[in-house]
């Protein structure tokens, strides 16, 4: 799908900056993310990647600049089903099974057409683990459950914070496959990494995030 210059981009940052106690965390940056695009945000430890994703999802207010979602300013109240965030913390309950966790996510965020929780678990390679308490899964398997959640909810914009961390090589390939599918059907994703592994299919646009001097 080719980006269409007439419709506004799915996500746009204009002069976006964030400072904590007047200490700048990341400098003013500008970028746009169109439908069908996957963008890789690169930066060293502590360069502000996680903070940027929080600002982009509306959890944290920027200190300067604006975030536009489909051309309109983003606020938490205006979010409605468009953004899915996968942070360092997965937002899953260790006491519940993968299936229970996914059902809760659907109740909260809605369901994409043509997929069921069981199919989502199957496609992240967790067949047979539907009913095991999440606590008994390994770190990589937990991450896969969170990826299944992305497949289920009807969000067009994925904000993924180091999706490759904790995964072995097979898991990394899985993430790349999911991103490709998502981009092909018109979704967009912003992913962060500190360079060791990366999105490999096609040539994703890379945005370097430099620590402010």
């Amino acid at each position: 799908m080719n980006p269409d210059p007439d419709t506004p981009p799915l996500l746009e940052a204009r002069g976006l900056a964030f400072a904590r106690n007047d200490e700048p965390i990341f400098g003013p940056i500008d970028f746009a993310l169109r439908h069908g695009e996957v963008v890789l945000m690169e930066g060293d430890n502590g360069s502000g990647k996680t903070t940027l994703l929080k600002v982009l999802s509306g959890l944290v207010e920027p200190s300067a600049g604006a975030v536009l979602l489909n051309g309109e300013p983003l606020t938490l109240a205006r979010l409605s089903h468009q953004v899915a965030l996968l942070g360092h913390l997965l937002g899953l309950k260790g006491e519940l099974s993968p299936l229970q966790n996914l059902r809760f996510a659907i109740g909260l965020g809605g369901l994409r057409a043509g997929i069921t929780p069981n199919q989502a678990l199957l496609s992240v390679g967790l067949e047979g683990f539907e009913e095991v308490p999440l606590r008994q899964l390994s770190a990589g398997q937990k991450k896969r459950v969170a990826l299944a959640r992305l497949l289920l909810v009807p969000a067009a914009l994925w904000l993924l914070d180091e999706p490759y961390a904790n995964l072995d090589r097979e898991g990394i390939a899985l993430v790349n496959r999911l991103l490709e599918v998502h981009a092909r059907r018109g979704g967009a994703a912003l992913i962060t990494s500190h360079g060791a592994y990366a999105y490999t299919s096609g040539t994703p646009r890379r945005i370097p995030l430099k620590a402010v001097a």
Partner: protein
Amino acid sequence: MSYGTLWGACRALLARDLALLWRRRGDALNPMLFALMVVALFPFAIGPEPQVLGRIAAGTVLVALLLAGLLSLDALFRSDLEDGSLEQLVLSPHPLALLLACKIFVHWLTTALPLVAIAPLVGEMLFLPGPVQPVLLAVLALSTPLLSLIGAVCVALTVGMRRSGMLLALLVLPLYVPVLIFAAGACNAAQNGLPVAAPLLWLGAGLALSLVLAPLACAAALKISIS
């Protein structure tokens, strides 16, 4: 594609919290045990004479339940914060205040309701005079949801902090004092054979008001403290 309804979201949240509770059902009894033990400590601390104990029984029960509720407050959002569920809740497309109201309801159901249920037993242990019993029950039924609602607002403010236990107590207690005054007022009136309607009505009014306002305040506080 189905975007889900608000009612569906609330139901999913209630179902999840109750399922979690069932998985941790041992913990759910703890506040009740704590209140029982605080009450049980008093006779040791001030001696076993029935008339002294009977005089302070209602007040001690109120303080014990208040403390037990206070201590269980911290758990209200803590585990959701620690595993990132809270972020997902805030980012959900439904009004946060309503979702939080569901969480507060589950909290009340599991920490306060058992306490109300054992109140007669506890009263008996402290030689609470018979006529005060029903008043104590009514007072608890009105004041425990009020305490849960007020507490939730405070806990939403402190949830981002690492070591919030004591700070939370400091924030909450001053707000609990008016509730305690009306509750104790009703019990004392009953103990002296006076009419108890006025303090109970005040408690009811406070409950009605905070049922509306507290979830909104809670949502606002939460948005501030997770950013």
